[in-house]
């Protein structure tokens, strides 16, 4: 990508990360709030007395020092551990906080990580969305496409956090999840016909009232509408979200058949091996039982003799030397030079000394 395109992209990401995010604001707030209060009161454990009273059973930490508060990500209402045990041990039950009718399960209760429950909720949502949208920059053709993708994901986050079009977003998320699953594991594709049948059933109800002929026409037309659009339309409907500039996923290349020679081959270039050769000198050996019974294979000898005879063919020392000299610095010259210097030094290699 060019530098021009990178610069705005980078700035955008910066803005997303550190700019107007309420999460970071509230985090900031959180730390600001904590430190002065703790410093002034010097009793960090009982900083906020109201938070230490269970809103359900009204027992306080003063009476029960081991009290632990839990929240359920369904509604984020805080209550103490004993209340959770008492109310939800026998299965799902509605939230005991007045005005909240959500059904909660005991298994989902957990201790909160952040003091601010809004932060807790936002982090949960972001975690969930990030798990579904885990594309990397390398998955996109251009940086702008990637940034647009990030923008779209951020919009989903905020829709869920602020409660805008939650149902519609959730439905799209579900579709996206299924499409993703199908993508990752093509063998486990379920027939994702449920949304289609619901749409069809809505219209077919209408059609049924009118008449069979009309229904047939409509059915065929709808079928003809669906079919020619084919894969592209299908994919768009299935995934719930469309991101532009995604690279096509390449299937891994099928494995080549195993080669027991591992790519090696030794074939004579200058002669063809005939398997048997007749020569007076060979016949005695060929008919000697010591040879043929002992495992001596005359063909091995023939091929070796041929290879020896033709071994020097096709080797042009002149050419190879010039190629070598042009390729590297002139090593050959140095080699002869060194010999020359040694010779000039008067200490020649004394061949007689060796033996």
């Amino acid at each position, binding site marked *: 990508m060019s530098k021009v395109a990178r610069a705005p992209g980078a700035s955008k990401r910066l803005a997303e990360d550190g700019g107007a995010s309420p999460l970071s604001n509230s985090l900031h707030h959180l730390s600001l709030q904590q430190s002065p209060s703790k410093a002034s009161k010097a009793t960090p454990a009982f900083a906020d007395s109201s938070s230490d009273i269970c809103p359900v059973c009204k027992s306080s930490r003063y009476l029960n020092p081991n009290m632990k508060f839990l929240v359920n990500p369904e509604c984020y209402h805080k209550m103490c551990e004993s209340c959770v045990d008492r109310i939800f041990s026998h299965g799902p039950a509605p939230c005991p906080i007045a005005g909240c009718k959500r059904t909660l399960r005991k298994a989902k209760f957990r201790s909160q990580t952040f003091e601010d429950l809004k932060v807790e909720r936002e982090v949960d949502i972001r975690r969930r969305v990030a798990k579904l949208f885990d594309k990397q920059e390398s998955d996109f053709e251009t940086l702008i496409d990637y940034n647009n993708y990030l923008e779209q994901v951020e919009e989903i986050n905020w829709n869920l956090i602020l409660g805008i079009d939650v149902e519609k977003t959730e439905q799209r998320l579900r579709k996206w999840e299924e499409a993703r699953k199908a993508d990752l594991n093509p063998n486990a594709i379920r027939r994702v016909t449920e949304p289609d049948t619901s749409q069809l059933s809505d219209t077919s109800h209408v059609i049924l009232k009118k008449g069979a002929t009309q229904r047939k026409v409509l059915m065929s037309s709808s079928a003809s509408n669906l079919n020619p659009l084919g894969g592209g339309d299908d994919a768009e409907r299935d995934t719930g979200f469309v991101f532009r500039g995604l690279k096509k996923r390449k299937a891994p290349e099928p494995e080549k058949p195993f080669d027991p020679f591992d790519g090696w081959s030794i074939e004579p270039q200058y002669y063809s091996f005939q398997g048997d050769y007749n020569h007076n000198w060979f016949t005695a050996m060929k008919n000697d039982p010591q040879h043929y019974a*002992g495992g001596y*294979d005359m063909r091995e000898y023939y091929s070796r003799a041929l290879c020896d005879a033709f071994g020097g063919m096709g080797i042009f020392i002149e050419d190879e*030397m010039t190629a070598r000299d042009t390729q590297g610095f002139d*090593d050959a010259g140095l080699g002869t030079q*060194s010999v020359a*210097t040694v010779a000039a030094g008067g200490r020649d*290699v004394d061949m007689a000394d060796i033996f």
Partner: protein
Amino acid sequence: MAVSPVLSPKPNPPGTKATTNASKAKALAILNHSRSVSSPIAPSAATTPGDGGQDLAEQMNDEVRRQFVSGSRLGEGTYAIVYRGHFRSDPSKLVAIKKMKLNAEFKDGITLDSIREMRHLCELDHPNIIKLYAVFTTKDQNISLVLEHLPRGDLEGLWKDHSIMYGGADIKSWSNMLCQAVWFCHESRVLHRDIKGNNLLIAADNTLKLADFGLARGFADPGRPMTSNVITRFYRPPELLLGSQHYGGCVDIWSTACVIAELALRDFFLPSETDLAQLSVITDVFGIPTETDWPGISSLRHWEVNFKSAAPKRPQPLSFWRQRLPLLGDDGIDLLRGMMAMDPAKRLSAEQVLKHAYWTNYPRPTKKEDLPRQGDGEKKMGEDLKRAGGELESGRTDKVARKLNFG
């Protein structure tokens, strides 16, 4: 003036030997040699003319020796000490330096083992054969071979280690690497003559490498006898036990098949106490071959002693193999029986072995990176490299120098 006798005839195989054509490499060895070794000397020779009275061969030797740094000792044996080492230019590139001990038998020269090893290893350049980087001598006239560093132990240690689990696909992968190495040796006209689990070392990336060419030799001309007293006993083929002096690549094929069977069995396939018992162990499985099974067998030297008046034995049926080696499958057993045909003329050649359907049939051989591996094999590598060829690990005759008839 003491001049190492190695250096003049022995071209130093440079690390940049890229050419795959063996004959080509041979032709260029001299050229490469003069280029890569003498060129760095040139300045030093020029600047210090009175260089301690060294001649050219000694300077070249020093130059090679200076390329490597030797470190801690990995193992010591009767014939060699193995050190860990690395390239001076690149400390991350490890090597094993095998320092041959002076042998009492060969006071005036180099032991045959090391000559054979140097001679054949410097010609063979294949991913499944151990690489010889360089050879140099030290002040005390000992020859050091700079070999590839293979830290993951050997194949025998692998099947002996019962904490490691492996299956048919892993066996196929290892066997294939072994068969490729054998095929390459035979195509390059080298007989290894000591293939066994101990000599199959495993590199850091799980590649199997054939090592220890101390008993290797080129294929003989017809009419020239070779010694039949080669190959560690468990892996020795029947024709050598019958005293054949004219043999070919078939002897390595038998040993290879023994190693594959060993892998599948997780035990020695044809173990015996003595050389004499080995033949009866083999015939227990394969039966006693007659003149029709193996034409000309009665002309082999030790046939009369062993088989002339022996009660006939039938080979074991297919069910025996299926029951004994279930990991190989039917195609694997077919391959193994082809590789272990008693008559060496009927035995598969290395090329036929690699063309067998076993390799391409299901299951596909495991990829190198997925093969089970052994930890702490570096010490084992030292143990393996220091051993001389042709002996079992804890044999009675461990400390006895071998006598071979090098016909």
